[in-house]
């Protein structure tokens, strides 16, 4: 059988540094081909070359025997290669149907034929068994639904190859299941899927073939059945990671933070918990259960309608992040692009942003002290960059996340909130963040952890609070908590 898509000896260099070296791939019809590798391994660059956003220095790409390398993004899309972007690219103010047909609107004598695109969109969404109205504006959709709309858009382009870059990073387990059903359907229609993800369990559920990249080189292409997660991790990092969640027994101290009857209208109600020094409280639940909303409110980013937050046994008033930081709360947001990093500033300037008062006299920054203090975290967290002066915009996701964590740690918090701290970052960096969480526990910090990855919640938390639709369903101890039990509470 002729291969659907063939990449031949693709090489690419950026300013003299080889980021891809002789990569050859063969993608088959109706198969899910997973692309694995740490951040910086070259997956994104390879995909950008495939869809025409970048040009390869050497090598060629054939789709059904026809050369497509060198074509424009628009032409390659027309040939049937579509990409579902990690950062979803849609026009929020337009409707679902208008987004699906963006750039290929139905026309009648140069007038838009809106009813036609609504009818067609309805059909496409129904085929995917999606319960999304084509008339709703995209800005009103959840991230999960937006992703589904992106897939619908790819299908409307008669895509033969669909590239999914971290498609589940913002999805709950239930939504992941819907996505996998859709992937199954697409496979049966003969569509090939290139699937990029860092999540092991998912890869083995969905992938038929796995290719591992490391440092711009192709390490291995194998059927998924011939691999397991340990083998795969070893191939990706080129070293053994013996234990994913390092275990350390730490004595719990006094209660650092306790929240009572927290409520925000139509978002969450009656939330009660406490976290001790040296303890990790995991918040589990499906997307939309209110996990992030609760911690945002505690940190002063959103307003609480009811309830009280006590720190060190005293009720505190938190109306802004500034108040929260003053009371010793640190927050690593799930959305580091939107509220984590300042891309144009350097690593040093980002890390020091919450603590500048400490390094300044009469409003002037003491540059030496600033450099010394930030350098410590730069080294401890093993941020991989050319130096403290490098702009954060040029860092990989994992390193950006480390910068945000360094910023929070430098402000010397007693309580730290980690909202999806490992989203979209590679295995090596994830492991380092797990180790860091244990170090912080040992130092006596109280930690509130949100993660959509069940193994993370189970592996790191001392207790797990399960939420469902804004309501607190249970607090499970480490021995009680299991994937099944959490799901049971989360879906009810």
């Amino acid at each position, binding site marked *: 059988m002729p291969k659907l898509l063939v990449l031949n000896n693709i090489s690419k260099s950026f300013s003299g540094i080889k980021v891809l070296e002789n990569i050859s791939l063969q993608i088959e019809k109706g198969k899910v081909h997973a692309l694995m590798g740490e951040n910086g391994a070259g997956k994104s660059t390879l995909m950008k070359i495939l869809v025409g956003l970048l040009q390869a220095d050497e090598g060629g790409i054939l789709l059904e025997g026809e050369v497509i390398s060198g074509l424009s993004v628009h032409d390659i899309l027309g040939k049937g290669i579509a990409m579902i972007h990690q950062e979803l690219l849609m026009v929020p103010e337009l409707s679902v149907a208008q987004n699906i047909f963006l750039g290929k609107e139905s026309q009648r004598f140069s007038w838009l034929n809106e009813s036609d695109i609504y009818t067609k969109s309805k059909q496409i969404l129904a085929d995917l068994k999606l319960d999304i109205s084509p008339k709703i504006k995209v800005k009103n959709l959840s991230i999960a639904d937006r992703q589904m709309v992106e897939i619908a858009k790819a299908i409307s382009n008669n895509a033969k190859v669909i590239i999914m870059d971290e498609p589940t990073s913002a999805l709950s387990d239930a939504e992941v299941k819907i996505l996998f059903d859709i992937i199954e359907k697409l496979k049966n229609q003969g569509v090939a899927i290139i699937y990029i993800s860092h999540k092991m369990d998912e890869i083995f559920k969905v992938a038929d073939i796995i290719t591992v990249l490391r440092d711009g080189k192709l390490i291995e292409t194998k059927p998924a059945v011939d691999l397991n997660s340990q083998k795969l991790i070893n191939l990706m990092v080129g070293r053994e990671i013996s234990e994913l969640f390092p275990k350390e027994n730490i004595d719990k101290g006094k209660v650092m933070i306790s929240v009572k009857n927290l409520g925000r209208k139509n978002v969450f109600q009656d939330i009660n918990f406490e976290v001790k020094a040296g303890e990790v409280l995991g918040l589990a639940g499906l997307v939309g259960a209110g996990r992030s909303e609760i911690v945002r409110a505690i940190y002063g980013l959103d307003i609480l309608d009811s309830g009280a937050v006590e720190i060190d046994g005293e009720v505190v008033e938190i109306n802004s992040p500034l108040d929260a930081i003053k009371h010793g709360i640190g927050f690593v*947001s799930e959305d580091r692009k939107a509220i984590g990093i300042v891309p*144009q500033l350097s690593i040093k300037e980002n890390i020091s942003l919450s603590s500048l*008062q400490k390094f300044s006299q009469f409003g002037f920054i003491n540059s030496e002290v600033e450099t010394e203090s930030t350098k410590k975290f730069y080294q401890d967290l093993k941020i991989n960059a050319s130096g403290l002066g490098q702009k954060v915009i040029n860092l990989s996701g994992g390193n950006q996340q480390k910068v945000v964590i360094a910023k929070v740690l430098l*402000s010397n918090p007693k309580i730290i909130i980690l909202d999806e701290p490992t989203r979209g970052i590679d295995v090596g960096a994830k492991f380092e963040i797990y180790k860091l969480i244990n170090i912080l526990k040992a130092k006596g910090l109280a930690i509130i952890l949100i993660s959509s990855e069940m193994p993370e919640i189970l592996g790191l938390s001392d207790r797990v609070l399960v939420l469902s639709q804004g309501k607190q369903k249970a607090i499970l101890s480490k021995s009680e908590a299991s994937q099944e039990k959490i799901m049971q509470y989360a879906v009810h």
Partner: protein
Amino acid sequence: MRFINSLRQYGIFFAFFIICCFLSYASGQFLTFSNWTIIFTQVSINALLAFGVTFVIITGGIDLSIGSIVAVAGVVAALLASQPDLPLIVPILGGLLAGLFIGFVNGIIITKSKIAPFIVTLGIMTIGRGLALILSKGRPISNLSDSFNFIGGGDIFGIPLPIIILIIVFIICYLLLKNTVFGRYVYAIGGNEQAAYASGINVNKIKIAVYALCGTLAGLAGILLTSRITTGQPNAGAGFELDAIAAAIIGGSSTSGGTGTIAGTLIGALLIGVINNGLDLLNVSSYYQQVIMGAIIIGAVLLDSWNQKKLLS
């Protein structure tokens, strides 16, 4: 990396250098001390405005009201300077406070109402022009005290006072933006306002301070202009905001916020001054000068985005 990062800045310095070389070749008068004194004096008012607007642009905002503030501050200073018995400090403080006040109002409305800075300062621009006309009853105010007229017309050891003021303000703004917590916050807000807020920065306070600073510098520019032309003109300063914004942008500030420097803005203002001066020396009609100026603004930004692309690939 440090070198590459500052390449943008060097691009403007380099362009400035090339143009100066060309003009000194084309006109013998260009590279004389007296000509440069003229250039700097002419540039001083635009540069003061451009320094202020640079802070605003870095936060991701814009201030269209500074031309009107020049007029209001000028009229206020002139009214006070035409009273025979008042000491010099009174008209100076009066002009500065008028600018500070209007800038403060800009900042309050922008941060409290969340209306776009473009709209707010457009409104304040019109209100300011009206205020200048009301205060002056629509007539120029003359017979200003000699000491007041010395600010814009006098010199110390042969160096015109406006140049000395320009240098002092340049140093203050340069240090403020580069070495203070305030300056760092200005960059952080322009780079990512939400991240700045989540990092514990009082975003509204900094923004109000930035508009107040911009207004105060416009007030200072108004005092200088009034003193130089020895009259308070309610119609003074019309269109000055656009030259100031142009200087900041030529100097490397991005209207999307987060980038820009005071040194770059000074070069931007000087570039505009040098080109106007050079074209005068070469007897190019002022009609053509405007066309050339516009082309340079677009060219500078093009050069900039071209540099950026080269850095990324």
